[in-house]
């Protein structure tokens, strides 16, 4: 059948520079480039190009330029190129359009409308290079008070997990991402004094000894979930939803269920790993409570239990219920959260921005006097340490970063994760591709990311005259907004700049 789809990218090869080394041919998992020995020429099939830039990066002579294709239909304000493309794709397949990575639509990014404060005259800024600067955070439920009686401090201190910096690696499952990528995240979390999240992909046994800085997810597929898994982790997280696809489950296609993935998830090789949309033992808040306590029982009440939800309309009420249901940590994943595969229509249209959800949830929990009973983790498109610092000021205890970590490892957001082909070796189980990600290098890059951002957070804290992160947490006085409407200011609990 004739496809009506036009290529998305244009490949420009500078023949003056091309040495016919064929690195591009070998490096493109989408088989875009080919070498014609008879003609001694390299050709490209642009229809297959996803714009991942792997060939351009690898070309030893910089002979390649990949850029969005400049074909144009008749200009139409309603029917964009993207709409036409999607329509054609569905007309040709009758299927649900998939995509990878987070929402790329121009919903308002509130971080870009918030500015931070700095100390001038009335109180001093602090020089983080010289003076102590504390980013340490304890995640977990805090008791309402410390009882002091007869020289005894009585405290029912539930499990706490310490992180040295408020940057945690998001749930990225082994299976969705490659073993190498997952290993890099694990080791970087370990070295960086933070945590990584298993997603629903389990935790390879050989990567367990000596490692505890892991949030073990218990999701609807229950993949890899057993007592060993739960008790090896620092935190157990019940995944209810994900920012990129609220209300949607997931399918790890059978071809991605390799022998190793199968071992880790403890499912048969080559069969789909289906994560149903709901957890079928949770249809209600009291069911959530049931699973929370099942997990507490399974872990001797020694691990904080986190519950992760997509940021949706009722997030504040739901979060309140979660805390009352026993969740020690509330994880909120916003509209711009990443994914390996999601129906595009869901990714682009469901959920609310994390900034608003965070502000609303933090405020609700405070109003109800239960904010201390749970830590708040937020996720969903955090791009730099500025976003993170603003999130702390809006009330987060720590921030999940997923896409940023992937980019640090090499991801170029080509959004083709769902194909199982990733030229950067991140989102693939093809051994030919996955080994492109050297876990050592990736780990180094991730540790650098954490280090760099932590230093920047310290700089920003210092500027505000704060030397311990907890003094910024929920401290919205250090935020001002620019260019927002009143309702947005109200939700964010932030005043306009100059106000």
């Amino acid at each position, binding site marked *: 059948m004739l496809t009506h789809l036009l290529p998305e990218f244009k490949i420009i090869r500078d023949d003056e520079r091309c040495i016919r080394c064929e690195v591009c041919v070998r490096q493109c998992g989408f088989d875009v480039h080919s070498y014609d020995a008879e003609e001694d020429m390299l050709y490209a099939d642009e229809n297959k190009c996803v714009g991942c830039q792997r060939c351009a990066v690898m070309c030893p002579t910089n002979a390649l330029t990949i850029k969005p294709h400049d074909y144009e239909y008749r200009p139409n304000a309603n029917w964009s190129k993207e709409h036409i493309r999607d329509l054609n794709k569905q007309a040709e397949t009758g299927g649900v359009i998939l995509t990878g990575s987070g929402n790329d639509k121009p919903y308002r990014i509130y971080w870009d409308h918030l500015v931070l404060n700095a100390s001038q005259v009335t109180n001093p800024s602090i020089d983080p290079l010289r003076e102590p600067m504390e980013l340490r955070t304890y995640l977990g439920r805090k008791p309402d008070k410390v009882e002091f009686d007869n020289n005894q401090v009585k405290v029912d201190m539930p499990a706490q997990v310490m992180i040295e910096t408020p940057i945690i690696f998001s749930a990225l499952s082994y299976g969705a991402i490659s073993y190498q990528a997952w290993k890099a995240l694990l080791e970087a979390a370990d070295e960086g004094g933070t945590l990584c999240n298993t997603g629903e992909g389990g935790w390879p046994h050989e990567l367990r000894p000596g490692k505890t800085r892991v949030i073990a997810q218990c999701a609807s597929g229950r993949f890899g979930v057993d007592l060993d898994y739960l008790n090896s982790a620092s935190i157990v997280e019940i995944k209810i939803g994900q920012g990129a696809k609220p209300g949607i489950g997931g399918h790890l296609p059978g071809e991605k269920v390799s022998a190793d993935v199968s071992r880790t998830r403890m499912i048969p090789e080559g*069969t789909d790993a289906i994560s149903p949309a709901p957890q079928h033992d949770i249809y209600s808040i009291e069911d959530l409570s049931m699973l929370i306590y099942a997990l507490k029982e399974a872990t001797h009440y020694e691990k904080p239990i986190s519950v992760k939800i997509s940021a949706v309309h009722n997030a504040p009420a739901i979060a309140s219920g979660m805390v009352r249901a026993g969740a020690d940590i509330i994880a909120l994943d916003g509209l711009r959260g990443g994914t390996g595969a999601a129906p595009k229509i869901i990714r682009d249209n469901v959920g609310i921005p994390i900034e608003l959800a965070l502000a609303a949830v933090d405020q609700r929990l405070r109003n109800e006097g239960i904010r201390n009973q749970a830590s708040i983790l937020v996720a969903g498109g955090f791009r730099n340490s500025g976003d993170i610092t603003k999130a702390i000021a809006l009330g987060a205890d720590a921030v999940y970063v997923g896409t940023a970590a992937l980019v640090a490892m090499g991801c170029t957001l080509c959004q083709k994760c769902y*194909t199982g082909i990733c030229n950067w070796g991140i989102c693939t189980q093809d051994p030919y591709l996955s080994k492109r990600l050297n876990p050592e290098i990736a780990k180094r890059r991730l540790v650098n990311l954490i280090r760099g951002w932590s230093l920047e957070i310290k700089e920003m804290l210092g500027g505000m005259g704060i030397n311990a992160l907890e003094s910024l947490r929920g401290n919205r006085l250090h935020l001002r907004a620019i260019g927002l409407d009143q309702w947005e200011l109200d939700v964010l609990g932030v005043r306009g700049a100059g106000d």
Partner: protein
Amino acid sequence: MGRITLINTSRPENDMNRVKFENGRIRFDADRLFYKDLNFLLRDVLKEHKPEIISIHNVYGQRYIGTNLRQNVKIEIYGTPGNDLGAFMDGPTIEVFGNAQDGCGNTMNSGEIVVHGSAGDITGFAARGGEIFVKDDVGYRVGIHMKEYQGKKPTLVIGGTAQDFLGEYMAGGTLIVFGLYMSEEQRHRADFIGTGMHGGTIYIRGKVEEHQLGKELGKVEMKDDDWALMEEYAYKYAEHFGYNHKQILNRDFVKLVPLSLRPYGKLYAY
């Protein structure tokens, strides 16, 4: 101010009066005991005394019994254990003299649960190993998302019938429904059997209409090894519940298997 000491108040106090040693067995009275206390106490008792059999009496709704008891012990439960009986369980054998509630064997890894009665919804949910025998009926979504891996293969045997979504998303293991209390003409209750199933096998004794089956599975003929398997489990069932196992094999079985390992492969536009 003198030396300050820290006291952690989170651990429930043990009430050893509830535990009695009788003829080499341990008898445990759970009357009105909160589940957390019951399970803590149970763990302590098992850890200290390592009995082969422990019986728990006056159980009314206490949850999570058997969770995180990683040892070979037989737990007899008299009464009605609460939800998530044996959730995440890895090892023990539980025998319930009464009915079990919802979530029995949730995400179970290994061990055995024998219910002398009925069990509720999502029995055997996401189980990865072990065996569950239910004498009578079960509720909705039973055996859903069961899976198997290498040596681990869960088996769920239901003496009566099951309700809708039986074996939904099933990815492995064996689900057997004997339909013992039904006449030949009566059809099983469950609709949407095996929706999304992509692994494992369901055996149903008695009548099942085509419309009761999910789209992702199909009937196949019973072969000799299927009958051998039915005989094995009929025998075990009879051993547990005092039934004549030959009686179970006197009616036809429907064997249901997934049509594809990738039920949703064609759902998407790549």
